């Protein structure tokens, strides 16, 4: 806890550089087949190529943009539904009794198992893709909110009621801020999961998106492009996650100090 943020940054950087070095060495010495693990140089070249020329008809920015658009819409949708529903479920027993069986039931279902149904109902456009990502993002967020709500001290709610908060105001002014730390953890998990579903979502009838790019490249054994895609996805995810953590520090400065 008593740490020097800068030194820690440096340490992280060193660790990453070490990993890169290891990769380079592995590729140079053919520790793993070049078919599956291209060298960093190859990957860099592939990246430059894609950045300049695009991949199969769309510029790289379009691929990234499409993926982020799908992810973003799905996540926003999840946020505006899971948050209120989670708060309500956490507090009002009958709402929880009705919703939870369904969420508990669909939550562990593999997207691959029900994607077909989504395509059937929503067609092959962005609708079914966003729905798949939405379903992936919804459950963990909902779960986190419910668990956050159930951990809010009852006396805090009592206090708010004594100060004149009605049912709805308790939600907005007490439950929501009280659960913010859990909500942030939920958001991070949920975005992470939606992200891992991206390739699956872009598996059907897509010709754009980073996930599709990785999938398409893998069909043609273009491991350099697969790596570009993976690294790109990883970096974008780390950036998003960093942003959320920054937000968390700004919004929930009291976390752990109550």
């Amino acid at each position, binding site marked *: 806890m008593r740490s020097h943020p800068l030194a820690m940054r440096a340490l992280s950087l060193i660790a990453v550089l070490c990993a890169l070095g290891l990769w380079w060495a592995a590729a140079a010495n053919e520790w793993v087949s070049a078919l599956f693990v291209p060298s960093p140089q190859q990957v860099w070249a592939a990246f430059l190529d894609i950045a300049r020329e695009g991949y199969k008809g769309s510029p790289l920015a379009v691929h990234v943009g499409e993926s982020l658009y799908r992810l973003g819409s799905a996540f926003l949708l999840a946020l505006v539904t899971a948050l209120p529903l989670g708060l309500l479920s956490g507090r009002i027993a009958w709402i929880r009794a009705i919703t939870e069986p369904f969420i508990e039931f669909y939550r562990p279902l593999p997207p691959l198992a029900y994607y077909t149904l989504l395509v059937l109902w929503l067609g092959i456009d962005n609708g079914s893709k966003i729905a798949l990502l939405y379903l992936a993002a919804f459950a963990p967020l909902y779960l986190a909110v419910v668990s956050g709500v159930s951990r809010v001290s*009852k*006396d*805090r709610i*009592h*206090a*708010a*009621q*004594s*100060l*004149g*908060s*009605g049912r709805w*105001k308790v939600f907005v*002014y*007490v439950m929501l*801020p*009280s659960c*913010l730390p859990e909500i942030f953890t939920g958001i991070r998990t949920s975005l992470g999961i939606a992200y891992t579903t991206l390739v699956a979502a872009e598996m059907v009838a897509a010709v754009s998106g980073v996930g599709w790019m990785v999938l398409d490249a893998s069909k043609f054994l273009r491991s350099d492009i697969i790596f570009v895609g993976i690294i790109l996805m990883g970096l974008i995810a780390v950036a998003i996650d960093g942003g959320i953590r920054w937000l968390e520090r700004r919004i*929930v*400065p*009291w976390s752990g*100090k*109550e």
Partner: protein
Amino acid sequence: MAQATERQAGAEPLAPKAGLAEGERRAAEQNAAIRLQGVRLTYANGKTDAVALGGVDLSIAGEQFVCVLGPSGCGKTSLLRVIAGYERVTEGEVTVFGRKHTAPHPEVGIVFQQANLFPWLTVRGNVEFGLKMAGLPKADRRALAMDHIGRVGLAAYASLLPHQLSGGMKQRTAIARTLATEPRIVLMDEPFAALDAITRETLQDQLRTIWSQTGKTIFFITHDVDEALLLSTRLLVMQGSPGRIVADLDNPLHAAGGSFALLRQHKQYAELRRQLVEMLKS
């Protein structure tokens, strides 16, 4: 319901708000501010249940300042929580202003034994909270909040978050938060326990002033016998296992003057104090 309530005749009323005579009290009970009838409260503590309140009958008229004394763990906080509507009674009934009372209500303000502030709000935010709930416009509530914050001596700390406050400062914020909304009934659970003598005296003074000016009903738990004698118009003494009221008496010293020094000079002080301490011991 074996309740050893011991009633002592109050001293002559020396000030308008001083202890009510027996007859007046009965009249007041008809539309008491707070009324408990046969209240039992048990907590499920593993195998054996803890009987925190074992059949309490209590009626508090408006404009009374009730102080509750009792050994640690005897059920004082439990009684207060029942009155606040925080605990569902296992048996019996609680009415507040004649209405059945089962949930927290803004007419019944409460100051906790531990401050219980909203950690994401500053001191001002916490004090403004109840005003915001009441729908006060922003400017008004800011002014009112700052007024109350000033009274508890925290004007310079209005923009700090609870985790940046000392123990006593938290408690003072909680007091300001509750008083700012002007509830008709104020329940306070050892509110001044965390405060130094000077701050304490200031706040005791203020509380007395508020009470005498606004005619609130105040239910005040303390373990400081002097404090109880100084503030209350009526004294309750509790004993535990099961929690019950063992004495319920008017406080003849109430109008003694408003300072500990004057209090101690009162002719009944020493005797009353000795009696109370005796009751607490048993």
